[in-house]
Structure formats: C-alpha cells, structure tokens
C-alpha cells in the first residue's frame, strides 16, 4: 500500500464530493449553494494540487494539470462572489450566482477527470 497515493486519493475525492455538493441545486437559487461548501472545496482542491506538485511521472503531471484547472475555476468563482458582495455592494442575485455555480461546475468536471484518472491508475496496480 502506498500511503502517499491513498492520501492523495482522499483529498481528490473529497474535493470532488464537496464541489458536487456545492454545485447541486438550482443555478440561481442562493439557498441551494452554501458558501462554506465552496470554501471547503477550494481549500481541499488546493491541498490536492500541492500534493501533486513536483511529481516527475507523466500521470502525476496530468493530475497536477487537472487539479490546477479545478483550483483556477474555484478561485474565479470565489472572486466573483466576493467582488459582487463587497465591491458592488449588491447582494448576490440569481445572475451572478449562476456565474459562480457554472464556474464551480467547470471545476467539478476537472475533479471528475482527476478521479477517473485515479481510478484507472488504481486498477492498473495489481498488488
């Protein structure tokens, strides 16, 4: 058993599940999307990225790429949220919320790819 791989699997799956939880619900319904869930998804996704940084294998580099994509999408979502609430002084309406949710949806796709890669890698290890 490779503990490093297991830890990485934990974080990448957690990133997916948290992100999925945030994404789930009506696109413009603020009550369906919790900011804490977005925050947790972003932090876990960043940790998953750090775990793959400096990996020389090809698969490791692909993991790094996909989780970086997820990070960027989630950071963009967080910035949109924070900007509308604090700079434009307007409360989060359905229009901006749908931007945030669709950005997190993109991150979700990247997370799914990461998990698919993880599963396929795990299957090829016959030990």
């Amino acid at each position: 058993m490779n503990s490093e791989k297991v830890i990485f699997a934990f974080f990448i799956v957690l990133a997916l599940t948290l992100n999925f939880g945030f994404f789930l619900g009506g696109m413009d319904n603020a009550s369906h999307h919790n900011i804490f869930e977005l925050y947790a998804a972003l932090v876990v996704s960043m940790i998953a990225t750090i775990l793959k940084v400096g990996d020389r294998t090809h698969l490791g580099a692909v993991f790094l790429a996909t989780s970086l994509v997820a990070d960027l999408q989630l950071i963009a979502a967080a910035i949109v949220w924070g900007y509308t609430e604090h700079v434009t002084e307007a409360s989060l309406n359905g229009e901006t919320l749908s931007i945030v949710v669709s950005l997190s949806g993109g991150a979700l796709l990247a997370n799914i790819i990461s998990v698919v890669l993880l599963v396929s890698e795990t299957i090829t290890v016959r030990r």
Partner: protein
Amino acid sequence: MSSLFHILFRRLRSPLFVLVVIYAISILGFVIIPGVDDQGQPWKMSFFHAFYFVSFMATTIGFGEIPYAFTDTQRFWALITMYATVVAWLYCIGMLLSIFQDAVFRQQMRINSFRRRVGNIREPFYIVCGYGDTGTQLTRSLTNEHILTVVIDIDENRITELEGDDFKSPVFALCADASQSEFLEMAGVKHPWCQGMVTLANDDTVNLTVAIVAQLLNPDLRLIARAETPEAEANILSFGANEVINPFETFASRLALAIRSPSLYCLYDWMTGISHQVMKEPPVLAQGLWIISGFGRFGESLYEHLDDEDVDLRVIESDRTKRDLPAGTVMGRATEAATLRKAGIKEAVGIIGGTNIDADNLSILMTAQEENPDIFRVARQNEDKNAHLFEAANLDMVMQRGSVISNTIFALIKTPLLGDFLRIVSRFKNERSNELVSSIIGVVEQDIPDLWEITVCAEETPALYQILKQRPLLVSDVLCGNEMTEDGSYKRTLKTLPLFLRRGEGNVLLPEENRFIKEGDRYLMCGSIKARDNMMLCLNNINMLEYILTGEDKPSGWVLRKLWEYRKGVGATSVDDSFKDSDADEELIKAEDVTEKPERAKDVKSPSDEDKPTSNAPSDTGTNKDE
C-alpha cells in the same frame, strides 16, 4: 531546467501544505466567530474580510482590526492564528533558503546554466577535459587567440581556480566527470560548432574512456588525447580520426631530431611552439656518448629514439629490481659523482636527467657540470611549479611535460594541417630541410613568424571565393607575392609562403606559384603576423582584393561602380563576353588539373625526390610579374 523545478517543488510540498491548512483553519475561524459592528450590532465576518485580515496578519504587516474593532472572542482566535500563520511562513521561507543552499540544487543550477551557455554558442569552440598544468596552459593559449573554450574537470578546486582567472575570451567550466556521456554531451560534443575535443587527464584510462565516449557520441569529432603509455596510445588511435600526444615520446623524438637534423628540430620547435617568438638558432648537439639517468617511461622512449640515430648511449638506473635494462647499464644513484664517473661522464657529450623527481634531475645535472663543464645538459621537468628552478639552473634543454603537450596540441588546433605537414617534412633529408628552413626565414626575415590556415570557401574567404567564381587565380596572385601596405598603396612584396595544400584527398607540399587556386583548397601559410593580418583583410574584402589583383581602385557602391564601368567603357555586352571567357578558362583549368594529378601524387609519396623551386624569394616573383 525541469529537474530544478522538480527538486524545488518536491521539497516545498510539505511547507506549502502546512501553510494552506493553517490559512484555511484561520479564515474559517474568523468567519464563524461572531463579532459586532460599530453600532454594537451582531455582525459576522465574510470570507473576503477574513481572508484579508489573515493575509496581512500572517505576513506580519498588521493593519489593525479591520473593518470593525474585534470582540474578545475574535482577539482570542487572532492570538492563536497569528503565531500559527507566522510559523507556517517561516517554515516556507526557511525551506526555500535551505533549498537554494543545498549542494545538489546548486550543482543542478550550475549544470543548467552551463548547458544553456554551451547551447547558445554560435562560434567555433573546443572542449578541454582536465584542467591541470597542461589544461591551464592550453586554455590560456586558446583564449589568447580568442578561441572559445569549454572546460570540464572533476576537481572542484581547479574549477574554482579557473573561475578566478582572467581570460581574453569566455571559458565555460563545469565540475563533472568527463568520462560520463551525459556531461560530455552537455559540454557540446554533439554541438554543431564544436571543433574538437582535447582530453588531458593524468590517467590514461580516463583519457581512453573519454575518447571512446566522445567517439561514440560524435564519430566526426576531432579528438586529441594525451597518453603516457604506448598501449593507451595505440588503443586511442585504433578508433576514429584521432591524434595522440605522448609527452615522453614527443620530446624523445624531438631530441633525436635535434641530433640528426638541427634545422628540422628548429622548424618543429618553432611550429609547435608558442607563437609570437622569434625563430631560435638550432642547438648544436655533438655526436658522442650520451648518458641517460633514469630508465622509466621517459628514459625508455629516449633510449629507443636515440638508439635509432646510432648515438652511443649509457643508462644509469638506481632501481636494481628493474628488468629489461639495456646492456652496459650502470647501477647506482646518478646524483652521486662516483656513479657518473663510472658511467663515463668525462668523455660524454650530453647527459639527460630523466627521473620523475625534479630535485634529483637538477642535482644530477649540477653534479655532471662539475665533472664535465662542457657537457650538454637536458632536464625533465615534472612539475610546473618548479619552472623557476630549472630556469635558474641555466640548462641547455628542458622538457616540460605540460608545455610540450599543450604547445603541440595548440599548434594542431590552430592549424590542423600542421600535423600532416610535419609528418611529411620529418622524412626530409638534411639538405632539403635546410632549404625549407632558409626559405621560411627568407619570408619572415626579422619579424615574428606565424602559421595560419586558409580555406577557399564562401564563409572564410568570401572575397577570394567571389573572384574565383568569375576568373581563375594563381597561387602567386593572392597567396604570395602580393600584399597591401599600410598606407593602402599598391605594392608587391612576398612576405608569405604557402607551405602545404590539401585539395580533396591529395596533399601538395610547397604548392607552386603557377598552380591554380580551386574552391575547397586548404592552405597552410607561413609568414609574419603583419602579413597574416593583411592577407586575411584582402581575402575578406573584395574591393581590397580587386585592387591588389588589378591595381584599380573600384568604387564599392552600386551607382558609382556602374558609373565607373561606364567610364571605363565596359558595357553590358562586354561583361557577358568576359563571362564566356572565364567559362573557357575553367575548361582549361580542368584539363590542366588532369595532367597535374600524377605529379601531385608523386609529390606526396616522395617529397625529397623532386627538386621544387622552394626558394621562391620575393625578387623572383617580382621579376616574373614585371615581365
């Protein structure tokens, strides 16, 4: 480059992890803990404000309690997180600094910058493996000629020493094992501008390994290796087009040459010596009994070469267990006068101090002089640092291992044709070599002589190449007989001498003046430094060359040239005519070349048979031209 990033990020993984986790917990805490606004109403920090506060708190900037003054609960949490985040940052920065000081990381950085600099080279360069006494001298000679050099040495101290030295052109150095293909490749063995490689390690096996690896990586590479045993020499010579320098062998054959033909010795000494020195008078070496003290590798090769010249020899050897000593060897310490007397020092004409200890050699030669003041003294100098001692001893001849190799290699690098030229000349009879030396002295006169090579091609001699496309030229038109004087006036003098010509596979010694120059010819030239500079100027500048060939100063600009041609009455039709003429001439050359070929072949095989007019003195050409 990529491996640098990998080392950096892999080591930074855990500090970054700690940083992200501590930040996440701190921010979360501030968002959850309730606070009050300026009106005393309950208020909760948003993620935006929490992130802002944690960011300036963690980096110790500390703007204060923004946007509203904290409650005690918030201050309690801030107290905890401020230490945690500062520690996380210190951990990150400390790790980053330690990575930059890490030996592996620094070596990787050096390798990367070395590889980048070598990769960016866009001029001819040489690789020197081994920066000992010989390597240092060779690198200095090369950089003095503004030849870029790449140095590899396994010893870090030597590389540090090199970095402290001043050179006239850049030297790229790497501390690495040259026998590893990875580093040789990095040093540019496969680089398109790499002219050749010189391997100068003290150990023959290392030289052999380097030679094999380099040969495998780049079979076309010109390789010059140092070897101290005949086995290693034969081994390196057995693959590829390599040159091997054995310092003992080189010096021994040189000494034998000095006895056989002083003028040839002089020629060798001058051609493979450091440039910028006046040709020396040949030493007078008498025939008679020679004493060799020390029968190691040096003594053995000396014995072999001098024996071939039928010199009477006597060997002194202190090691009684040594085998295969020649007959008549005197056993004993040569530093003692009694041993020297036993070897016949009184009748001897020369003595060679050839042990591997410098102090012994000096002692032997000093004792020998006391016993026989007229004796010719030859010393082997083992270490570079003892040069002053040997100079002070005022000996007749000193064999410095380092400079023997570095000078020979330098001459071979500067003028690759020299090796073949010297090989042919070494078979000369005494009279012919005297003639050659005197004709060189005739060309050079009192000036400092120099050797250089000319290749007839568009890159190196564009002017000559361009004119050659239009009309045929004779050797005497450009390579000897003509020179631009300093004030730019037209003058015919002969200050240069073409020594050797390589055309395709054929070699011509002392090419005749009435030979046609052809594209791709390589000439080994000899003359004064000033003549060399002037010649290179002419061969690169078409206006200058035209002026020398015709005596007419043509304008270089297009408009003025057309005007000039018009004034001269050279119309478009006549230009066409002249082209036709040159075509016809080319046919002529071809025909002539066919007839020339057998003659040339003969030239190579038996250079001494033919009586070529080697003494093409300046006046001869002058009169020919006038006619």
